[in-house]
């Protein structure tokens, strides 16, 4: 069975960033079109529509763009599960190939936090002959995504440590801008766009689908 599995792993270390940033970054479904959607080579993420979410997971419908032919798009359902150790597991598919990703973040010491991304592809049939191009493509994708997310992680961490609160901002009083009032991290994150709510498969709209009148 292991012959069918392609594993790609990347590790990065950042100076003293809270591991919670890892979970926040992945569960922030509103940033992909702005931060990962404008790559020179055409590929990227266009939209992430949340269909269901609770305190530890979400299910989304994601639209991604092909490399070189950015006008060609494909959709995939993604499921993210957050764990108490600030890791996130992502279940998805890549043109029908089942994929599993694990994003981990641990404090290695007082000054460093190590981020690890492990990606697994379950390759069967002719897909097994495409290991090399898949590895090339995914390594580049992960590297680009990491770079684009990096400024978000560092900036968010900096201002959270100054008492920043979502939907409020920095404390009005400068004396309160310190690390004594760090907001507690909770899922689901507050969203200010309602794209997911308008999708017919969104949990909010399912009642209509399952009613006898439909």
């Amino acid at each position: 069975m292991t012959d069918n599995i392609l594993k790609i792993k990347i590790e990065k270390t950042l100076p003293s960033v809270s591991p919670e940033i890892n979970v926040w970054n992945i569960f922030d479904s509103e940033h992909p079109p702005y931060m990962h959607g404008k790559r020179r080579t055409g590929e990227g993420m266009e939209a992430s529509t949340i269909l269901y979410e609770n305190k530890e997971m979400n299910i989304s419908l994601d639209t991604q763009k092909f490399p070189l032919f950015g006008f060609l798009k494909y959709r995939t359902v993604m499921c993210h599960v957050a764990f108490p150790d600030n890791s996130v597991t992502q279940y998805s598919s890549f043109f029908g190939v089942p994929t599993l990703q694990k994003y981990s973040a641990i404090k290695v010491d007082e000054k460093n936090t190590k981020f690890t991304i492990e990606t697994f592809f379950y390759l069967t049939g002719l897909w097994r002959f495409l290991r090399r191009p898949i590895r090339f493509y995914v390594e580049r994708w992960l590297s680009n995504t990491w770079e684009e997310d990096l400024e978000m992680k560092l900036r968010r961490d900096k201002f959270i440590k100054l008492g920043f609160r979502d939907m409020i901002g920095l404390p009005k009083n400068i004396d309160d801008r310190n690390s004594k009032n760090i907001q507690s991290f909770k899922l689901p994150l507050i969203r200010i766009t309602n794209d997911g709510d308008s999708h017919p498969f969104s949990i909010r709209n399912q009642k209509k689908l399952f009613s006898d009148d439909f």
Partner: protein
Amino acid sequence: MSSIIIEVCDLDDLKKKKSITRYYEDLKDEVTTYLKYGAFTSFSTVCPHMGGYVSLVDDVSEIKRCKWHGREFSKGGEVLNSKAKICLTHYETYVRGDKVFISYDR
């Protein structure tokens, strides 16, 4: 209530560069100061939504936009493309002699 006063830059410097963005340790905030139609404006670049980087995107209307999630703010700091009640912090800006200052009530 006491005010904190911070020197931003030389007036000539701001005229040359059009805008200056800097993190001020005394303010514990990152602020962009710009000069438009003879008026000075300073706003926090920290988006009240999630802390993203807000910058000036329209010279005429002075609309600001967050790089992370696309939230837009009016000249006065009111959010334009969301029903969320969030507002971008602005700082009082003035010139004394040949220096630009911002002030804020602690």
